[in-house]
């Protein structure tokens, strides 16, 4: 199948998914309330620490801008496919995709894209309100290059997260329930990708490892581009790693998926 054929199928699937997802628009709004709550709580807590004279390695502007943008970037780089894909493998539902001239991943990608379109619209007002409350300490760069890198970084991060999701789901070819693995990955990622707090606040002894570990490039680095004071050298190194990790993640997911397909026996087969 050619690239243009694949893209055409994905485009059609996006339209179908988008139409279906619109039925649950109120649910999306509620989920977005949930998305913005955790960063808002963290922001208030860390600002309270600053107000009490805590000597943090970052200033109020950094913290505020980071947490205001966190919900948006976190949503754009997220993926929720692993549990659904694992269930499809376990129940034999991927059989219908195997015999089609497409891939189950087209469906997953289309679902990811269409839901993110709706979530972006649902999330925007909440981000705007948070922004308005803290507008005095939200500082964004004026350099257009940073914004180009920011967008590129989000796309690369989203690909990495999606590929890691497929990688985890592929374990369902051999393991009945991947829920525990998924959960453990989620907890670890929450710390290492900067979901709970900016990576700059982690202890100094961990910084060397934190700077190069892959989870940083699934969320934190995108934010650091617009929030942080990254030097040109940091930006070049970071962007290089940001582009390498999705390639590695996709290759690993592809290899495991293909091995899994060889081991796959559908229910009843």
């Amino acid at each position, binding site marked *: 199948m050619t690239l243009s054929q694949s893209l055409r199928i994905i485009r059609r699937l996006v339209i179908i998914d988008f139409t279906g997802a619109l039925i649950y628009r109120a*649910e999306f709004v509620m989920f977005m309330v949930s998305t913005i709550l955790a960063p808002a709580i963290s922001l*208030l807590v*860390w600002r309270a*620490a600053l107000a*009490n004279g805590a000597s943090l390695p970052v200033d109020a502007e950094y913290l505020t801008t980071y947490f205001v943008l966190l919900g948006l970037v976190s949503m754009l780089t997220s993926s929720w496919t692993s549990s659904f894909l694992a269930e499809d493998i376990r129940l034999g539902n991927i059989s219908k995709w195997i015999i089609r001239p497409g891939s189950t991943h087209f469906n997953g990608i289309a679902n990811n894209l269409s839901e993110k379109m709706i979530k972006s619209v649902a999330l925007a007002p909440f981000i705007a309100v948070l922004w308005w409350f803290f507008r005095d300490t939200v500082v964004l760069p004026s350099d257009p290059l940073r914004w180009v890198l920011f967008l590129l970084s989000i796309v690369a991060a989203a690909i990495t997260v999606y590929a890691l999701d497929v990688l985890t789901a592929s374990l369902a070819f051999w393991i009945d329930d991947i829920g525990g693995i998924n959960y453990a990955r989620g907890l670890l990622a929450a710390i290492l990708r900067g979901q709970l707090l900016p990576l700059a606040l982690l202890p100094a002894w961990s910084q060397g490892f934190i700077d190069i570990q892959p989870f940083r490039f699934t969320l934190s680095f995108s934010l650091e581009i617009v929030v942080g004071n990254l030097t040109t050298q940091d930006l070049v190194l970071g962007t290089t790693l940001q582009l390498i990790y999705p390639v590695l993640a996709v290759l690993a997911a592809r290899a495991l998926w293909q091995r899994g397909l060889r081991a796959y026996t559908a229910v009843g087969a």
Partner: protein
Amino acid sequence: MTSSPLDPTFLHAFRRHLRLWKRFLTQSVVRETHYRTQFIATFVVGLLQLVFSLIPVLLLYSFTDDINGWSRGDVIALGGVYQISIALLWFGIEPNMERISLYVRQGDLDLILIRPVSGLFYVMLRWIKPAEIFMILTGLAVTMVGLAQGSGALNAGGILQAMVLVICGVILVSSAWTAIVMSAFWFTTTGPVATVVADVMQAGKYPLSFYPTAIRLFFSFVFPVGFASTFPVDALVGRGDWNIVLIGITLSVLALLLLRRWWHFAIRFYSSASS
């Protein structure tokens, strides 16, 4: 729980429903023994959550010794009390919340309303997750570790105040949660409500004094997670006040009465499965 041939007085009704709840508990324990792996998984997951929830607190206090009068030990103790409150909610309330919209949507509420039991009692307390009991124990352990490092002196009065406040907090949060979920009588599904409530509850991991006044008031009276975490720890470290306990008890009674009225109002809009 109104007066009926089965229950001449409120006390009779209360005792009958208590007996019924004990049956639910026994049944849930028996059911849980059939899913031992799930039982262990719930415990491990809760333990991991507890450990990970303490990481931001430890990092926060690596940059300062005191935030608005709260030391590191106090906030760790707060994490423990929060865990106890959450475990109590997940033990007896959370398993029922998602089912309420299912009862309404699929018409199963028909079978509940015709039973000789309070409908509100049944939809709120029918299902129990016994594995959460262990999370109460780990929450207690964390509370003790925090108090040992904290600034206050423990006394019997403070412990009593804290226990009453935790119960009030659980009642208040349960009432608010159930009231929100009852919007299922008007909307098709209230599935994401549990996610939103869980995220709002996260605010209780930190003292209310960390937040601006408007948010403090919200978490004290609208979605009163403060009664489930901050106020009990205040009591434990010697900053307690019997007036707060009295307010907590009054609000809890008021919340239950309002919830009961809300339930009776909401079921008027229930059109059953086949009508």
